């Protein structure tokens, strides 16, 4: 590893302990980074299904998910492009609730999340169970804006934010891992910000 960069002082000297390595606090900003045109999805035409290695493949409409037990996340999010955003508040339903209904089979170990746009991202099943992942439609008490994945996105805040698929419409349980969109394009299969797992091989 190379030594110090000549003349580089860096600006933020007091590291907030909530910041993973290589990240900085973006403040009240919330950058939009997506690789496709923003889709316009009417809530009444949106649905989410849980399928693949499950005993009971299940779909929920917009009205259906609102009848499930509500769940919320308060905390930080981290983007691989090096910004972190503190003290966010999202509301929706826990992925655990969806999985309880769909009942993953014993050989299900991974999840592929798919968006309305065709965007995909892969996750180990254990990263979306045990109160670590949500399907959310509110941010800060307001409807989730379309550019941030509204009406409904996946939220897996302990991993880099490309794992939190915008406009999510499907969770497919898999026996073996398959790579999603950014993962095929060189990004890490797990994406733990505390281990700086940005790219394949990190």
């Amino acid at each position, binding site marked *: 590893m190379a030594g110090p960069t000549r003349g580089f002082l860096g600006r933020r000297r007091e590291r907030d302990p909530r910041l993973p390595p290589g990240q900085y606090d973006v403040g009240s900003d919330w950058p939009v980074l997506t690789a496709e045109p923003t889709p316009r999805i009417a809530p009444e035409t949106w649905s989410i299904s849980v399928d*693949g290695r499950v005993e009971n493949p299940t779909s929920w409409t917009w009205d259906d998910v609102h009848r499930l037990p509500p769940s919320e996340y308060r905390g930080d999010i981290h983007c691989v492009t090096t910004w972190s955003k503190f003290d966010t508040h999202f509301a929706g339903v826990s992925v655990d609730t969806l999985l309880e209904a769909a009942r993953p089979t014993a050989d299900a170990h991974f999840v592929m999340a798919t968006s309305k746009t065709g965007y995909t991202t892969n996750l180990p099943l254990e990263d979306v169970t045990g109160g670590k992942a949500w399907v959310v439609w509110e941010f800060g008490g307001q409807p989730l804006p379309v550019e941030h994945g509204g009406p409904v996105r996946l939220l897996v805040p302990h991993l880099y934010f490309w794992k939190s698929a915008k406009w999510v419409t499907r969770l497919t349980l898999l026996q073996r891992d398959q790579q999603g969109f950014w993962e095929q394009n060189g990004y890490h299969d797990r994406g733990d910000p505390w281990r700086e797992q940005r790219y394949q091989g990190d």
Partner: protein
Amino acid sequence: MTEPAAAPAGMGPRRLRAPAGGWRTATVREVDRPTPRTVRLRLEVPDRVTHLAGQHYVVRLTAEDGYRAQRSYSLASAPADPLVELLVERLEDGEVSGYLAEVVEPGDVLEVRGPIGGWFVWEGDEPALLVGGGTGVVPFVSMLRTARELGRTHLLRVAVSTRTLAELPYADELREAGALVVTTREASGIRPAGRLTAPDLVPLWEPGQTAYVCGSASFAEAASQLLVGMGVPAADVRVERFGPSGTSG
């Protein structure tokens, strides 16, 4: 139980395995400032993995006490260029871009990683419509240079938007390549100041093209919606957005 069906067209699995490279210690060979807010760095990267037009590099800076900051920058150079060329926009309060714009001199060494990215790339063999805003033209400069080397400039159509001509990096190169240049804050020729419109893009569009859109979040959103509104299938539109914290921090 059901196996996953094919993903919708567009962003599903692709055959392309884009080249990817690890960390290298690059030497800065050339530094200049083509516009008031940008700096162009040409780097010698030892043991370099050849990139595809549209890919980017990460630049990582390390302070004496070990503090590090890194940002991604698109490449402007063609793969055959012996040096790697980055065009960095100096952002207000930019921790990395400010250093690169003000401190870096020829002979300095920088830690870089790349190439990275396999979506916003042009492989040189398919027709493409390139729509760039401001410094969002950088990956398109790489594509145009690649096309020139391959003798395939006929495959590319280019439209760019800039506040003023003086603020557009690579303005001469883009115009020589036949790019439509729209200026939003000054009149240009017979054209009044104004944004890119569908009538600008319709004559450039042909079925079978992949459209590439690169620029600020607001430019990319507007331009990609313009294309979709013209009837370009959303699955044929690839978007690269940068913001205060994105690929050009």
